[in-house]
């Protein structure tokens, strides 16, 4: 047994809650910097005040001790403050990684019974908000949170209260939630402070994502000693060695880092012949077995005194339970995982739970007050993993955690890791249960049998899946796509080996030795995927990759389908001009949205010759034609539609679902435009949205109000009542369309049930949103209002202000102009119409009766305070897209709203019944 007597005594003491330690520290150093993020500092007093507001918000809304609260946020000061606030309230936080697939997030939310999620607005679309049990979402930047008192709470929290739940890979196909109590968190923090000698002048980098153990050690111990947590900025530095740059520019003294990342960093230091940044005094590598070779290189690059540690610990023991600190002369073939931390005990036991002799290998068990309470809702797993054993020399049983790691005790008292009992592995410091991946694979109808292993090629670890199919042609790409929808990206194998059957031993077990080499497996690629062929295409693809932040761009990929926006087009054009010395008009890019077509276009207009391409060559022309056909086939077959209403003919365009027979074909969205210059500004964005939605399987109907766009109608009789009537007519048309789609699907046997429901959704932008909300529409399933006009008089005043500016500013005209009345910024606006606009008071006139209604707001719209009056019952999502409806300099500019479009797609595709 490897436990010192001091540890045994301390394990019975009262340790206290994390919140109590933090509050004591606030009293000691109220004006010291607690958090630093992107140039802004939060003192301990600031941090504590804001955390108190969050705690009070939770308590005011009826949340109680141990209620689980989700956190789905990027790294930021606000995220840390939110964690602290939840802890102070007695609730427990549950990190929800926005990179997780929606299914996994949904499972965690359900498993942890999460009723409220502090969520960056961009991530709300990851959650199904249509179910009755859907959690509430709170934007952590919501000004309402700041209305609560900032004083510490009086109520005491027992130290055995749950502090957080961290989900890890589970072998049964579902992740399991590890429950950590305040007592455990505090125990770990105290041990961390003791071993790493944390001081008030330390500056610890917060580098890890929040659902990773390392984030706990980056955030919580430093805040117990009055030191600063420096959060990694969102903007990635374009430097060769980003981590060194971060450490140097932020004067970081303490760094906790996943072993895989530390290896990469050491390689970069060696490659650039640079030294370990001089500000660093502490480096803790954790998560995987340390490469001794890297440690040797590290020492060569380290010119000053740095406390370097190799820490080990499963999540179930609260971050770390042992650590090895090599002395100056340490050198060996393997690096041990060290000795137990303060208040932790480690035991190497045999199969009968008896301590093995020193040097003998056994299974490693951990005990002490830092052990997790257990897995949430998994009594069977708790029984297996947390056991009570009467250890040698004891009379009372001790609670132990079975790590599943094999280990042995060295004569020095250090523990050496010897492998796994099972097949659990770590890749990129992520703990992965291959059984979980296999379990998900087994749910795929095409898969009869599978085995997932970890492999390594040229020093890079990767996952490989051996798959036996049910006589169905299923590609690696399809399998990877299937898994991506259900597992985190790091759990999706990168190689697939298809076999007729898995090799078995005479005992019937899988013969792993007989498996073909993993690196021979198929890489998942879309069947139609084609890599860039010429050097020029590769250069273009590199520019797209850079602008879109996508690692792999094929030559047939459509820029806009990859998430490109008008703004990004300008960036691409700027880079093409800078790097490839070609200037092209924006409209050329819009007409040539793939690598292949843009490359041909640039070749054909360039004065220079791209020798690989000759646009006049007949083969090239044929290929170009085929490419255009292919590109066209992915786009909707747009249909002009005429909708009669009150003597006018409304011009409309229907974007039918691209693939017949897909799930949403009986779901039709009607888009209601903004008015005047705002409509012109949003037109392209809405057209792109319509295309994308039709590719997702929805039908989309866009139409012009009477007297606007291509619709007929006299300018002098336009009115908002007439336009409301137009909306009703368009919705009716869409309803019939959706019904016909259902009927057709039944005819084609795509849908079995003729009563299959149809869905009609309505999206309105600006005035369109306000018109929808004030129109008594019936039988509407979903309503989405985008930056609605709340007070008509303010809106009208704004239009008049813009109009006056255009006439008098000497920007549009050479001299000041006077103008005929009843027109605003280029559009007809009869007096009666102006009066009806001014009479809009949105929330007093709302007549919506829809199953689901949402309001979306752009960043500038939210900042103007328009969102403050939103009704509480409406789902509100705020995005970081900037449109500037209220800035006159932008009246002539089209805009892109990739994030809002993404949210809209998410709401609509989830909302289909």
């Amino acid at each position, binding site marked *: 047994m490897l436990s010192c007597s001091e540890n045994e005594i301390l394990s019975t003491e009262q340790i206290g809650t994390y919140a109590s330690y933090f509050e004591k520290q606030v009293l000691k150093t109220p004006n010291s910097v607690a958090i630093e993020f992107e140039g802004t500092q939060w003192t301990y007093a600031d941090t504590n005040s804001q955390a108190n507001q969050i705690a009070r918000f939770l308590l005011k809304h009826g949340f109680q001790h141990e209620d689980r609260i989700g956190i789905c946020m990027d790294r930021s000061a606000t995220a840390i403050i939110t964690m602290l606030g939840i802890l102070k309230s007695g609730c427990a936080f549950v990190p929800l990684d926005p990179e997780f697939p929606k299914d996994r997030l949904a499972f965690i939310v359900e498993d942890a019974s999460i009723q409220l999620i502090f969520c960056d607005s961009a991530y709300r679309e990851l959650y199904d908000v249509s179910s009755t049990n859907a959690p509430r979402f709170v934007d952590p930047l919501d000004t309402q949170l700041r209305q609560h008192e900032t004083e510490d709470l009086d109520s005491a929290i027992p130290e055995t209260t749950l502090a957080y739940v961290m989900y890890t890979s589970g072998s049964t196909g579902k992740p399991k939630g590890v429950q950590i109590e305040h007592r455990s968190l505090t125990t770990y923090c105290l041990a961390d402070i003791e071993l790493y000698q944390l001081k008030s002048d330390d500056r610890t980098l917060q580098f890890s994502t929040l659902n990773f153990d390392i984030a706990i050690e980056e955030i919580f111990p430093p805040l117990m000693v009055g030191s600063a947590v420096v959060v990694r900025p969102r903007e990635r530095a374009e430097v060769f060695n980003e981590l060194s740059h971060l450490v140097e520019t932020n004067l970081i003294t303490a760094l906790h880092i996943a072993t895989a990342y530390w290896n990469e960093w050491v390689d970069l230091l060696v490659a650039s012949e640079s030294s370990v940044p001089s500000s660093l005094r502490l480096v803790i590598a954790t998560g995987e077995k340390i490469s001794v070779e890297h440690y040797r290189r590290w020492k060569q690059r380290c010119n000053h005194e740095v406390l370097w540690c190799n820490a080990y610990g499963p999540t179930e023991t609260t971050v770390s339970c042992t650590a090895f600190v090599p002395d100056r002369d340490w050198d060996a073939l393997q690096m041990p995982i060290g000795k137990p931390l303060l208040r932790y005990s480690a035991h190497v036991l045999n199969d009968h739970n008896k301590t093995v002799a020193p040097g003998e290998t056994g299974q490693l068990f951990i005990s002490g007050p830092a052990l997790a309470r257990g897995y949430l809702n998994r009594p069977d797993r708790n029984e297996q993993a947390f056991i009570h054993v009467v250890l040698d020399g004891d009379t009372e049983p001790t609670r132990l955690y079975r790590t599943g790691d094999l280990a042995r005790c060295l004569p020095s008292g250090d523990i050496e890791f010897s492998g796994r009992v099972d097949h659990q592995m770590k890749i990129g410091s992520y703990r992965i249960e291959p059984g979980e991946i296999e379990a998900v694979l087994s749910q795929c109808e095409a898969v009869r049998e599978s085995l997932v292993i970890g492999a390594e090629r040229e020093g890079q670890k990767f996952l490989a899946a051996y798959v036996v199919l049910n006589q169905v042609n299923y590609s690696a790409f399809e399998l990877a796509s299937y898994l991506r929808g259900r597992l985190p990206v790091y759990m999706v194998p990168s190689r697939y080996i298809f076999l007729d059957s898995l090799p078995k031993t005479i005992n019937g077990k899988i013969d792993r030795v007989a498996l073909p080499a993993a690196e021979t497996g198929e890489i998942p690629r879309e069947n139609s995927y084609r890599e860039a062929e010429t050097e020029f295409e590769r250069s273009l693809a590199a520019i797209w990759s850079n602008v879109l932040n996508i690692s792999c761009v094929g030559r047939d990929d459509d820029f806009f389908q990859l998430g490109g*926006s008008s*703004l990004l087009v*300008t960036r691409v054009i700027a880079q093409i001009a800078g790097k490839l010395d070609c*200037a*092209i*008009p*924006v*409209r050329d890019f*819009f*007409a*040539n*949205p793939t690598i292949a*077509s*843009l490359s*041909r*276009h640039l070749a*054909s*207009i360039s004065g220079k010759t791209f020798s690989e391409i000759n*646009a006049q060559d007949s083969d090239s022309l044929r290929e*170009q034609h085929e*490419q*255009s*056909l292919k*590109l*066209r086939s992915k*786009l909707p*077959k*747009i249909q*002009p539609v005429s909708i009669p209403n009150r003597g006018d*003919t409304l*011009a409309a*365009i229907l974007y039918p679902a691209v693939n017949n027979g897909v799930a949403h074909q009986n779901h039709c969205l009607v888009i209601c435009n903004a008015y005047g210059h705002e409509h012109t*500004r949003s*037109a*392209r964005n809405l057209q792109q949205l319509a295309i994308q939605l039709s590719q997702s399987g929805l039908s989309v109907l866009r139409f012009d109000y009477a007297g606007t*766009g*291509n619709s*007929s109608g006299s300018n002098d009789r336009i009115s908002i009542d007439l336009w409301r009537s137009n909306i009703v007519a368009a919705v009716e048309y869409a309803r019939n369309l959706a019904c016909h789609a259902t009927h057709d699907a039944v005819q084609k046997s795509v849908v079995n049930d003729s009563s299959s429901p149809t869905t009609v959704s309505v999206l309105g932008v600006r005035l369109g949103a306000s018109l929808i909300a004030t129109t008594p529409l019936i039988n509407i399933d979903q309503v989405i209002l985008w930056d609605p006009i709340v007070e008509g008089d303010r809106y009208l005043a704004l239009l008049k202000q813009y109009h006056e500016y*255009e006439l*008098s*500013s*000497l920007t*549009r*005209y*050479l001299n000041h*102009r006077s103008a*005929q009345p009843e027109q605003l*910024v*280029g559009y*007809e606006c009869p007096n009666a119409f102006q009066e009806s606009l001014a009479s809009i008071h949105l929330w007093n006139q709302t007549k919506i009766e829809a199953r689901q209604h949402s309001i979306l707001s752009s960043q500038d719209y939210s900042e103007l305070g328009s969102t403050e009056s939103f009704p509480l019952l409406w789902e509100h999502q705020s995005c970081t897209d*900037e*449109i*500037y409806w209220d*800035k006159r300099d*932008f009246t002539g*500019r*089209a*805009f*892109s*709203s990739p994030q809002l479009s993404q949210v809209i797609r998410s709401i609509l595709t989830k909302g289909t019944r």
Partner: protein
Amino acid sequence: MIETPHVFGTYENLFGIHCESNVGSRNDASAATSKTAVLMLTAGMLSSVGPSRLHVELAKSLSQRGLASFRFDLSGIGESLAVGSPGSSQKRAAREVQQAMDLLELKYGYDRFMLFGLCSGADDAIVAALEDPRIVGASLMDGCGYRTNRHYAGLLLRKYVPKLLSFRKWQEYLSGLLSKSKIASSTMPEGLDIREFPSQEQATREITTLIDRGVKLRFIYTSGVIDYYSYEKQFYDMFPSFKNRAEICVSYHPQWDHTVMLREDRHQLIENVSQWFATTVATIESKITPPDKRDDKVVCSGGRSSQASELSICTSVYQT
């Protein structure tokens, strides 16, 4: 007025709207059998509706004057879908104009076309007319221009002096300096697009080719392009060889802006342009031998086979 939308083109990706003529409103003899339609080309990145519905109102005015029209979106703009088209954007526009003409010829029997182009639409119209002999006239608003010595003086006097004397401009400038760095917009900045003017010599050659072919051209300039066009007679200082060519009409409207935002300016423009189209078409059609009596075939610059036509008369009513 009857309007019919169409989806057309090689890849069924282009969108346009045909507006029938109100035949009864034309009093010339050829009106009933008119084979001429006006095509409105995409203005910059704006949809077929045009700036402030200019194209819709122009279509209405043309219809009332007995002329059919077709307004459409180039690929990747408005409702037309991008399918990848190499070559210069003007050549691509010319190809798509041809596809529109093919549609109209097939569906409605038009075999002559007049073009209306604003901004890049004007640039595209010249290239399209060079490529296809079916095009017999074009009204080009704020098309190509080349700075002359006199232009610089005009620019200073008309644009910069009033601004220098404007208190409001100074206010804006100073507040702009203070607030500039605060906005990082996701909107698309104006003025990023590239106009594709040929060299002055090439422009001279191209226009010469067209008018030698009998194509009628009406150039309209506004203060919206004061950076390269700033006084009434600048066109003839740019292209002195066209001074006595009756096929060309030019007008300069310093009170108008580039997109004719004000209703009164727009109506004036529409009135002028539609009347020019109506008069020019009537003149052309009155001079053309009925189709069944034509027998000479010539090959024009675009390489397309076409019936010969004698088009040498220009109405210079609106020439300034």
